[in-house]
C-alpha cells in the first residue's frame, strides 16, 4: 500500500489509485509538476518519457532540475528527484522519443491513463492516435504564459486532438520575404533562410535572392539589371549561395556587398515594385550608419539594446567567421542547424535581420526581441504550469473514480472572465467530430494534387507531413496494389515517378495506413491542374479555422487568451494558445516543411 494515511480519499479512489498505472509524456514544466503530484498522491506505477536534456532556461519552472543537472536527461533526473518525495512508488524513466516502435499500441494499452505534457504538435498528434488505438483515456495539457488548459480525450466519447482543424503555421509569401518585406518578422524569416543557405540545410524554398518571378514586377522583371549584373543574383546564375560564399572564403565584406548592396540594387531595378512603396536603400560596407556614434547610455539587459547598423555589420562579420569555423570542423557534407540558444547563430540572424530592416525602412529590434520572434518563444512560468498540472491530476483522479463524463475540459484564464472565473470548466464533454479523418469510424480525407506532376516521393511527404504518419503504407482500394511501402527498398524505385505514371487517376482512392499508429485512412485523390504540391481536403462542412473573434468589450486581455466554450476550435494557434506547453521550438521532432499544412485550403503562396 503506497498511500501512507488511510482516509484522505474514499475507499474507492484509494483502491483505484493503488491499482493504477500512469504514463506521463514529457518531463518539461508541466511534466515535472504532474510527476510530483502523482508521486505525492501515491500513484504506485508511473512511466515518464522525454527525449530532451536540461537547459539553464528551464530552471525557472522545471523545479525537479537544478543547475548541476544541465545537459542531463530530463526523464531520468525528474525520476530521481521525484523518488526523493516518496521512495515507495515505482517510476520508469525513458530518455527517448515517444514516436518509436518501442512504444506501440500494446505498450500504451498497459496504462489506465496517459498524461500529455508536450511542447509540439507532431508528438501530440502521435500520442493522440496511440491512445485512440489503445482505447486509453488521454489527458492533454498545455500552457502559454498565464493561460493554460486541461482536456480529456477518450475514443468515442470526446473529440480527439485532431478533430478540429488547426491553423497552419504562419507563413509568408515568398516574394514578401525575398523582395518586399514590410515588417520586422519578414526580415527575421529572411535572415533565418540566409543562415540555412550559408550554413544549414539548403532548401530551395528558402531562397534569399531577389525573386524575378514576382507577378507584381511582371513584364519588366529587372530586365536592365539582368544584363548588367547577371552573375551575382541567385535566380540568374544557378550556382548555390553556399558554394558562392565558400568560394569567397565567407569574406564578410563580399557577402555583405552582395546581400545588402548588389541584391538590393537588383530589387530597385524591378521598378514596378516601388511605384507605391518606399524603395530600399542599398548599403556600402565601409560607409555604414552609426560608425562614429558613441554608444548611448543603456539601461536594461545588454540584449535589449538595439544595435546600430555599423554594429550589426561587425556582428555579422564575427558571427560569419565563427559559423564558418563551426562548419569547417564538421565532416564533409554536414551542416549547421539554426538554434536560438547558439550564440553565433542568434547573433547572425539578429545582425542580418536588422541590416535588412534598415535597408527597407523597417524598425530595427534588439537581440532579445528578435530571439522571441525567431525562436517562437512562448514564455512559460512556474505558476501556470503548477495550476494546470494540479488540475490535470485532479481530473485523473475523477477518471479513475469512473466519472469520465464529469471530466470536462478546464481552461486557466490569464485574467478572470466576466463571471469572476479564473478556471473555467466546460459544461459537457465535446463529442467527436464524425468527419474527423483520425477518430471517425471510417476515416477519410481528400488529397488535391496534380497527378501529372506529383511524384510518389512527394506523396509520401504528404502522408507524413499532412497526415502526421510516421511510416505510411498505401494500397489502391479495391485492387490491393501496393503503391507505397514503408519497407525500405520495396517501392523506392518508383519514388521519382508521377502518380499518373504509376497508374493513379482522378477519383481513385488509396488505403493508407501506419502500422505503428494502428491508423488507416482512405485518401481520395483529386486532380487539380493548378496545384503545385498537395493539400488536404476534408469533408465539405469541415470548417476552416475560424477568423479570430473580436474581444468582448470587457476583455482587456491580450490576443492569446484561451476561449472557453464547446464551440472553441483549436484555431487560435498563431497566437499559440493552442495546447502548446513550454517554449521549446520543436527541436524534438522536425516540423512539417510544407508551406501548406494540415487542412488549410488557403493557398499561402500568393505569388
Amino acid at each position, binding site marked *: 500500500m503506497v498511500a501512507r494515511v488511510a482516509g484522505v480519499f474514499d475507499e474507492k479512489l484509494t483502491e483505484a489509485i493503488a491499482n493504477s498505472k500512469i504514463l506521463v509524456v514529457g518531463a518539461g514544466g508541466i511534466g515535472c509538476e504532474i510527476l510530483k503530484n502523482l508521486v505525492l498522491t501515491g500513484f504506485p506505477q508511473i512511466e515518464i518519457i522525454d527525449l530532451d536534456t536540461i537547459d539553464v532556461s528551464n530552471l525557472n519552472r522545471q523545479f525537479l532540475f537544478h543547475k548541476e543537472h544541465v545537459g542531463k536527461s530530463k526523464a531520468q533526473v525528474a525520476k530521481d528527484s521525484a523518488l526523493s518525495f516518496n521512495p515507495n512508488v515505482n517510476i520508469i524513466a525513458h530518455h527517448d522519443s515517444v514516436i518509436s516502435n518501442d512504444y506501440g499500441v500494446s505498450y500504451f494499452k498497459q496504462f489506465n491513463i496517459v498524461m500529455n505534457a508536450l511542447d509540439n504538435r507532431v508528438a501530440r498528434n502521435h500520442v493522440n492516435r496511440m491512445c485512440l488505438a489503445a482505447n486509453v483515456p488521454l489527458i492533454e495539457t498545455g500552457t502559454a504564459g498565464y493561460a493554460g488548459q486541461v482536456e480529456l480525450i477518450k475514443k468515442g466519447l470526446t473529440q480527439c486532438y485532431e478533430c478540429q482543424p488547426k491553423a497552419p503555421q504562419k507563413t509568408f509569401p515568398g516574394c514578401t520575404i525575398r523582395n518586399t518585406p514590410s515588417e520586422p518578422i519578414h526580415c527575421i524569416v529572411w535572415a533565418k533562410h540566409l543562415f540555412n543557405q550559408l550554413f544549414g540545410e539548403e532548401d530551395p524554398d528558402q531562397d534569399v535572392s531577389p525573386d524575378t518571378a514576382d507577378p507584381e514586377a511582371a513584364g519588366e522583371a529587372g530586365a536592365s539589371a539582368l544584363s548588367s549584373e547577371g552573375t551575382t543574383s541567385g535566380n540568374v546564375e544557378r550556382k548555390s549561395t553556399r558554394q558562392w560564399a565558400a568560394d569567397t572564403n565567407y569574406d564578410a565584406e563580399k557577402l555583405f556587398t552582395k546581400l545588402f548592396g548588389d541584391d538590393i540594387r537588383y530589387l530597385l531595378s524591378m521598378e514596378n515594385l516601388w511605384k507605391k512603396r518606399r524603395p530600399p536603400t542599398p548599403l556600402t560596407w565601409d560607409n555604414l550608419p552609426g560608425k562614429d556614434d558613441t554608444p548611448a547610455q543603456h539601461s536594461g539587459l545588454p540584449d535589449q539594446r538595439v544595435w546600430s547598423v555599423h554594429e550589426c555589420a561587425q556582428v555579422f562579420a564575427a558571427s560569419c567567421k565563427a559559423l564558418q569555423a563551426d562548419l569547417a570542423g564538421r565532416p564533409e557534407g554536414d551542416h549547421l542547424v539554426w538554434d536560438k540558444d547558439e550564440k553565433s547563430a542568434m547573433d547572425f540572424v539578429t545582425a542580418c535581420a536588422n541590416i535588412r530592416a534598415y535597408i527597407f525602412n523597417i524598425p530595427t529590434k534588439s537581440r532579445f526581441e528578435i530571439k522571441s520572434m525567431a525562436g517562437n518563444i512562448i514564455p512559460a512560468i512556474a*505558476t501556470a*504550469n503548477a495550476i494546470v498540472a494540479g488540475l490535470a491530476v*485532479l481530473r485523473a483522479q475523477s477518471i479513475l473514480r469512473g466519472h469520465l463524463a464529469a471530466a470536462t475540459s478546464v481552461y486557466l484564464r490569464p485574467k478572470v472572465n466576466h463571471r469572476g472565473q479564473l478556471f473555467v470548466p466546460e459544461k459537457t464533454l465535446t463529442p467527436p467530430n464524425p468527419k474527423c479523418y483520425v477518430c471517425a469510424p471510417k476515416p477519410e480525407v481528400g488529397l488535391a494534387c496534380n497527378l501529372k506532376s506529383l511524384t510518389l516521393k512527394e506523396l509520401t511527404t504528404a502522408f507524413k507531413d499532412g497526415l502526421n504518419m510516421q511510416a505510411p503504407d498505401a494500397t489502391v482500394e479495391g485492387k490491393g496494389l501496393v503503391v507505397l511501402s514503408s519497407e525500405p527498398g520495396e517501392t523506392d524505385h518508383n519514388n521519382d515517378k508521377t502518380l499518373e505514371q504509376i497508374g493513379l487517376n482522378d477519383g481513385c482512392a488509396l488505403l493508407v495506413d501506419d502500422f505503428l499508429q494502428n491508423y488507416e485512412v482512405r485518401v481520395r485523390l483529386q486532380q487539380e491542374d493548378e496545384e503545385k504540391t498537395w493539400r488536404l481536403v476534408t469533408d465539405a462542412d469541415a470548417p476552416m479555422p475560424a477568423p479570430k473573434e473580436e474581444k468582448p468589450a470587457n476583455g482587456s486581455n491580450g490576443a492569446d487568451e484561451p476561449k472557453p466554450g464547446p464551440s472553441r476550435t483549436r484555431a487560435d494557434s498563431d497566437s499559440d494558445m493552442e495546447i502548446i506547453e513550454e517554449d521549446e521550438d520543436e527541436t524534438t521532432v522536425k516540423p512539417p516543411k510544407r508551406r501548406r499544412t494540415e487542412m488549410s485550403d488557403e493557398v499561402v503562396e500568393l505569388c
Partner: protein
Amino acid sequence: MVENNEVELSEAEAEQYDRQIRLWGLESQKRLRASKVLIIGLCGLGAETAKNIILSGVKSVCLLDNEKLKEIDLYSQFLTPPDKVGENRAEASLQRARALNPMVDVTAETRAVDDLPDEYFTTFDIVCATGLKQEQLERINNVCRDSNKKFLCGDVWGMFGYMFADLVDHEYSEEIVQHKAVKRGPDDTEKNARETVSITVKRRAIYVPLQNALSADWRRPELRSRLRRGDPSYFVLKILLRFRDEYNRNPDPAKRKSDTETLLRMRDELVKELSLPAGFISDDLLTDVYGIVAGAAAVVGGVIGQEVVKAVSQREPPHNNMFFFNPVKCVGFVELYGQ
C-alpha cells in the same frame, strides 16, 4: 512598497529568468528581486507557495513554522524528505527550498506566530499565511495593514481551497492590448494592416481586511443576490475555519466518519444562522476535506504564487479579494467580500 532595485540583472539572472522576463518584463523582475517574503505554515500548500515564489526570483524567503512534520504532510509536502517526520517543518524544508534557486536567500524560523512580536511581521514586504486560526490570521493581517504591508492567506482541505488577499492600497500597471490600423504598402489589406499595440495604464485597488471579508452580512440584498450564482464555497470556508477554531485541528482522515458528521452538523447550523436555501451547501463539498491533496495544493499554491508575483511587481490586476477552488465543479473564481 518594494523598492525598485536599480542594479542591473547579472548575466546568470538574465539567463535563468529569461522566459519569465519575456512575459512580465525586466522591471517586474527587478522588483521581485528586491522583495522579502514571509511564508507561514509549511504544509503542502506552504511548500507549493514557497516553490513558486522562490523560483520567481525574489530577494529572500523566510519559512516560518513551529510544527513538527507529520506523516500526513507527506501527501503534498515535497520540500521535506520523508525521513524527517518529527522534525520542525520549516527547518526540514530548508535544504530543498534553497536548492530550487540558489540566488534566493532562504531562511527558517521555528517560533510560533503567537510568540512573535508585531514588528516581526512588518520586516517583510509580503506575508503569506496558511494553517492558522482565524484570529491569528486577523492579527497578522492587521499588523501588516497598519504598516502598509501586503498580506495573503489561504488553505487547502482535501481538494477544496481558498485564498484571501489584503494588498491595502495597491497601485499597479496593467497592459491593455489595442488594435490599431496601420498601412505600410499598397498591397496591405484591411486584415494585415491591423496591428496590435499594447499600452500600459496605471490603476489602483483598495482592499479590506480579512475580518471584514469573513463577516460579510448575508442579510444584505446585494449579497443575497449572489446566492443565485449558486457557489457555496464561501460557506464551506466558514465551516472549515470554525471547525479548526473549535477543535484546534483540521478534519482528520483517521476520524473520517465522525468528522464528516460534525462538519455536516456545522453546515446545518450555518444554513440556519444565515437563512441559506436548504441543500445549498451540498454534502459532497464537505466529504473530501481530509489531508491536503497534492493536486489541489498545486492549484491553490499556483494561484497564491502568482498573486505574490503580481503584488510585488505591481503589474497586472491582482485578485480582490477572495479566490475559491471548488473541486466538485473544478471551477476557480474570484469574489469581493466585505466592502
